[in-house]
């Protein structure tokens, strides 16, 4: 892109306020993000993001690469705490609790959420141990419960049939797509309230992708899902609300059908019709 147009776009997005037309799930909001700004050292990665995640719905985050989707997602379970030189202003509330408050219990917070990362990150242990890891850190020792959880999670992640005979083998010996599904199984093993997924299907074949989408649809209602995706069709298929981000700003946030069919922002229009990105 020409540098002139980039500057123009930045001025453009900075001046234009976010467009909202959020579909309500009728159960209130789970996560409320309020005027969130984030800096990696000197560079600002998020600008005044303001949005709510509706309870029981699936929320998709879309936007061109580098626009801050992962950053925003990782703010929700404070995964960004590990980054040196990180600065955050604004607040994020889980129900009514400010998760960035001094008194907030980060570990308890993370126990209420599950996260699937952009790149699969299985632990150097057996498949079984990987899946039950969230229960293990909670101190669950009941073998029957652990085995049952393992099976349920692996089935939900469409992995059970492939690995049921090698549960005790190292997870590092699996293929990339299998590892990603293993991470999904791990994320849902402890029944999290909110499931954060960062491009969970990027390494998967269409069949596994369809299964994961089914899983997301099954989870919706009971759980709340926030999913980052580059696949427009997928966003359209699985999500109720879609947030479009651009250059660290939230451009448009609202009902998925509207965002994809009659977007209210011209930027969104350009992106979903494939004019840039």
């Amino acid at each position, binding site marked *: 892109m020409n540098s002139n147009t980039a500057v123009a776009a930045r001025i453009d997005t900075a001046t234009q306020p976010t467009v909202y037309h959020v579909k309500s799930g009728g159960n209130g909001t789970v996560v409320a993000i309020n005027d969130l700004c984030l800096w990696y050292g000197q560079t600002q990665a998020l600008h005044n993001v303001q949005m709510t995640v509706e309870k029981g719905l699936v929320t998709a985050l879309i936007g061109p690469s580098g626009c801050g989707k992962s950053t925003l997602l990782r703010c929700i379970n404070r995964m960004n705490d590990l980054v040196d030189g990180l600065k955050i202003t604004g607040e994020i509330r889980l129900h009514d609790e400010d998760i960035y408050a001094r008194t907030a219990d980060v570990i308890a917070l993370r126990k209420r959420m*599950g996260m699937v990362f952009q790149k699969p990150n299985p632990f150097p*242990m057996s498949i079984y141990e990987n899946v039950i890891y969230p229960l293990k850190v909670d101190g669950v020792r009941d073998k029957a419960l652990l085995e049952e959880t393992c099976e349920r999670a692996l089935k939900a992640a469409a992995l059970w049939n492939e690995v049921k005979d090698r549960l005790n083998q190292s997870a590092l010996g699996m293929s990339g797509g299998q*590892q990603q599904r293993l991470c999904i199984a791990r994320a849902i093993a402890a029944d999290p309230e909110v499931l954060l997924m960062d491009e969970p299907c990027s390494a998967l074949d269409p069949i596994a992708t369809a299964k994961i989408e089914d899983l997301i649809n099954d989870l919706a209602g009971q759980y709340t899902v926030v999913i980052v995706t580059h696949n427009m069709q997928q966003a359209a298929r699985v999500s109720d609300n879609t947030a479009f981000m651009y250059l660290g700003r939230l451009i448009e946030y609202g009902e998925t059908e509207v965002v994809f069919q009659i977007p209210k922002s011209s930027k969104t229009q350009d992106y979903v019709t494939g004019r840039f990105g």
Partner: protein
Amino acid sequence: MSAMADTIHMPAETSAMSTATVRRTDMRSRGEPALWSLGGALAIGIIMILGFLALVFSNGVATFIPKPIIVVTGIDGTVTAGEPFRSELFKPTAEELAALSPEWQARIKDANGYANRTLYRLGNFDIYGEDFRWVPDFAVAKFEQPKNLIFVERAEWGPFVGTVKSFTIDGAEQAFTGLGATAFEKAHADARDRAAAIRKLERGQIGAVNHELEQERLKVRKVEISAGKTSAAYKAAQDNLAEVSVDLQRRYDAATADVTKLREVDARNTLTLAEIGGREKTIPFSALVRAYAANDLSLAQKVGVYFSRWAEFLSDEPREANTEGGVFPAIFGTAAMTLLMVLVVAPFGILTALYLREYAKQGRLVAFVRISVNNLAGVPSIVYGVFGLGFFAYVLGGSIDALFYPERLPNPTFGTGGLLWSALTLSLLTVPVVIVATEEALAAVPRSMREGSLACGASKWQTIRYIVLPRAMPGVMTGIILAMARGAGEVAPLMLVGVVKLAPELPIDGFFPYVHLERSFMHLGFHIFDVGFQSRNAEAGKPMVFVTTVLLIALVTLVNATAIIVRSRLKKRFAGSQF
């Protein structure tokens, strides 16, 4: 716009250049000289290491091969019998030259005034007063290898070279018919059993009595310190001591009576040897370690002698100021010390590295600590020895003695060098290695794995415990291996903090509390130094130096090999199939 202008000009310039000059890569820009010097450096390094290993191994492995005994008759009629040890060129003096025959004078002149001479290991130190003798080639009338000559290894006075005249069993003189004769072998076996029985009595029963008596005395002394000399408790303790002493004395007398009886029997079983000149020497049968007819050995017998010498070397205690016998106490001491050191250095180093890398705020202070730790590795090891002696032995050990062992003062218990202080000193010396290796291993654990664990609701400690540490284990192991190898081979600081030439007792034995961390101990590295440079006869100790060095190298290699195998097993667990 300017970029456009450049692209238009470019082709013209390039074509102009290509007509003027041909582009070439010269040797220097290809880096060939650099490659040669890199390869050369590697080659020199490898040659030096291989040369060193070849020297040590060829000498060490050959030491225990039984050598022939040569009888040299000189022109002047002197007879020398011994193992040829080594040869060298030397310059005979003018007087020696003048006394020689014209042929020899001519030969030496041809060789620029040099003549060859051979060093013979004579044995029979008790008779000759010397261990070795040089025999110049020009002084030799003839060489012989008589088959009846016998090489006798004795428990005292070193080897004897000569013949067996006769032997007595229970006072009755027997004719000697050969080393393999049943009567002779049985007498030898009996004598050995007897010697073992005597040693067992002295070490076991008499040792136990002495130990108990010492404990009782210490009890009295303790009461004296705590309650005073005039107290009733002191009186009672003394009465108790007197009572126990009677019993102990009885046991002591019984044991010594047994020993005396055995010694009397021993004195009636003797072996009479004669050296080449006919002088005789009678030794108790039990002093005979090994005898073989050096010039009349079959290959199987040679192999037998070779391996029995190795077995003795590995499992026995040293004799003859360490120049003969075995090195078992030194192996044991080295192993015990290294193990103890690992037990200290591994947790200490790993915890320090964990704190530095995972918990401490990465700022100037931590950077400073890290630099200091790295610099510690460069401090000369003798400095650690001085510190170990001054701080561990005198300050710490002295306080421990004053607090817990006041009854033994002024004899130090922990207040002098010992196994514990040696292990601690070496831990200090090797802890930087472990810290640096562990820190690197921790830093190499991918962040995605930590994030995965934290996202599952694990605490930081759980993440470290379940994910980071197992994953970093191969690297940590590398650090521990390096520390062990460094520690096992270190000698200088140990000389100050607990290693001795000859330790009367092993640091682990049958007396409570079984592991005696305060005891001084023997060490292979120090053994090499001692035998090679501190013994009565450096020449006699030389083979021992090589053998011990081979052993030390073998031990270090063994330890490293095991650790490397363990490490590669661990590594395999973490190697994925993912690309």
